[in-house]
């Protein structure tokens, strides 16, 4: 089923320079009770964003109007822990279309790719440059080009390339998903299933 197409994204970014941000922080388990994919953005980073009486925590970046944009920039090992796709849904539903980090946890990265959020892995040095640039000027824009596989700090023109396999790249640029692909090879799957030992 189609999702948003991703081509070139130019946006300011929200910095979250914390390592090992796990999916329990991105969306705590008590907000996983929905049976539809709706409203998860409200609870993105719930316990970092709100006090227990639901008042906003002023020092958390999502509550700081200085920072906004469609790109979330996180510390190393972003998205570790639980496989809950709700974490990727919350990131998307809040309005992010791209997450940048120097390292992603496996399942979170897959989940993002499957719903049209682009995970961009950069070097530790470049990540630091992005954090520094945003700190110096929160209105700093990043350009993420999927066709070129590059991420550029527009203020300085510094750029780095990122990896994505050709199949997923094509999916994201066209809004295709894996099920579309798999249904087209259903006969092969059925032949395979008929011969499997288990």
């Amino acid at each position, binding site marked *: *089923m189609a999702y948003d197409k991703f081509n070139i994204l130019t946006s300011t970014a929200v910095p979250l320079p914390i390592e090992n941000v*796990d999916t329990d922080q991105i969306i705590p388990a008590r907000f996983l*009770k929905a049976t539809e994919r709706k409203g998860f953005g409200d609870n993105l980073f719930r316990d970092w964003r709100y006090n227990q009486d639901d008042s906003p925590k002023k020092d958390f970046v999502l509550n700081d109007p200085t920072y906004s944009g469609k790109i979330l920039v996180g510390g190393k090992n972003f998205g570790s822990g639980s*496989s809950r796709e709700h974490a990727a849904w919350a990131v998307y539903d809040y309005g992010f279309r791209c997450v940048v980090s120097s390292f992603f946890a496996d399942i979170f990265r897959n989940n993002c790719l499957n719903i049209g959020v682009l995970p961009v892995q950069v070097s530790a040095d470049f990540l630091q440059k992005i954090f520094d640039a945003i700190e110096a000027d929160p209105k700093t824009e990043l350009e993420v080009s999927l066709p070129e596989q590059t991420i550029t700090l527009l203020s300085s023109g510094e750029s780095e390339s990122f990896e994505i396999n*050709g199949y997923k790249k094509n999916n994201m640029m066209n809004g295709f998903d894996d*099920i579309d*692909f798999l249904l087209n090879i259903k006969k092969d799957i059925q032949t395979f299933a008929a011969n*499997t030992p*288990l």
Partner: protein
Amino acid sequence: MSANKTLFDKVWDSHVVHKIENGPDVLFIDRHMIHEVTSPVAFLGLKNRGIGVLYNNRTFATADHNTPTINQHLPVEDPLSANQLKMLEENANEHGISYWGLGHEKNGIVHVVGPEYGITQPGATIVCGDSHTSTHGAFGAIAFGIGTSEVEMVLATQCIMQPKPKRMRININGELSKGVTPKDVALFIISQLTTSGATGYFVEYAGDIFRNMSMEGRMTVCNLSIEMGARGGMIAPDEKTFEYIKGREFTPTGADWDKAMTYWETLYTDADAIFDKELTFDGSQIEPMITYGTNPGMGMGISKEIPMATATQGGASSYKKSLEYMKFNEGESMMGKTIDYVFLGSCTNGRIEDFRAFTSLVKGRKKADHVTAWLVPGSHKVEAAIKEEGLLDILTEAGFELREPGCSACLAMNEDKIPAGKLAVSTSNRNFEGRQGPGARTILASPLVAAAAAVTGKVTDPRELMEEVALH
């Protein structure tokens, strides 16, 4: 057969339906387990596409993440939870999927009931919308957690699309010393690798330590593979594995067993196979472990001191933030810290051997008055064994109560939440901030360490209590 393949290669390669150049493999999935939390949106997706489930006999449903662990015979109070459970039942019924809901005799945590009923088999590919699906690797299966989009994929096509991970082997030989359990071995490995040290890899555990482990011990180790970032972990099947699965409800019989056995007997790593990464540790150096921070990689031997921020691999600010949350200090010992809660259970340590270990240590002692202890069996089958073996009598005598099966306080999705600020010793798998309830502070440990904490009311080396028993 070419003689240079790893166990992982053999199982993966034999399940590839289709290869895409510069893209993922299409991998056939033998067994798919679903639960109430990560499946409803997948079924909704099928409905929107106007398609059904391709092989409903390959998917199994159980309710576990969001179920109460007391009064399961009564209606579920929370309307959102009740609705989620109802959706699972309706979806399973609509698509003809075997469903073990709340109150069903086979109900329990998905990764506990899978092996109990023989759904888990060597050489199978097994997925579930839960990261601890890696548990099933204990049988020599390729098993890993997936997201909801992939749950929908498996329901619709019995396949997922993923690039093949790299291969890592972790060898541990020698002998474990007294009081050291499979949980300690796993926490030790994670403390050495960090929570991202195995990301991108599929791990094979090899060596005497794992050979000598029971199947349940192997499940505990494989369960925690995800906590070092690994896609999954596996152990080559042996006589112990075949003995364990024989005669279970979904295990093949007769000619089917023979056919499966022909395949299973090929499931080992060839002598000249090459791994992308290989690590070796000495098992005799491992002591009972505890965690002191907010990820499972922040663990240490119970007799050690919390490392200084300057001595850690990651960023010092994230490390300090973590200790601040836990209200611990760099360089201090954890021993003797007063604890408030003990949680025995989860897909990591909610099996009968875990309850035996816990009971062996609390036997003849009393639960500390100020400690709240939640003992939650992984399934009804475990619950029944606890009663049959007389463990419940010993636990009751020592002041403990037994709850009903479920994931419970491991992820605190139901009512079993550790209150803010309270310190818990938990046999579960994650000590993330707020994992066991908003503001809760978690120390991960083995059932023996949990038992020692439960009776003394503080962080205690279980070996001290084991010595006392030996003296009697």
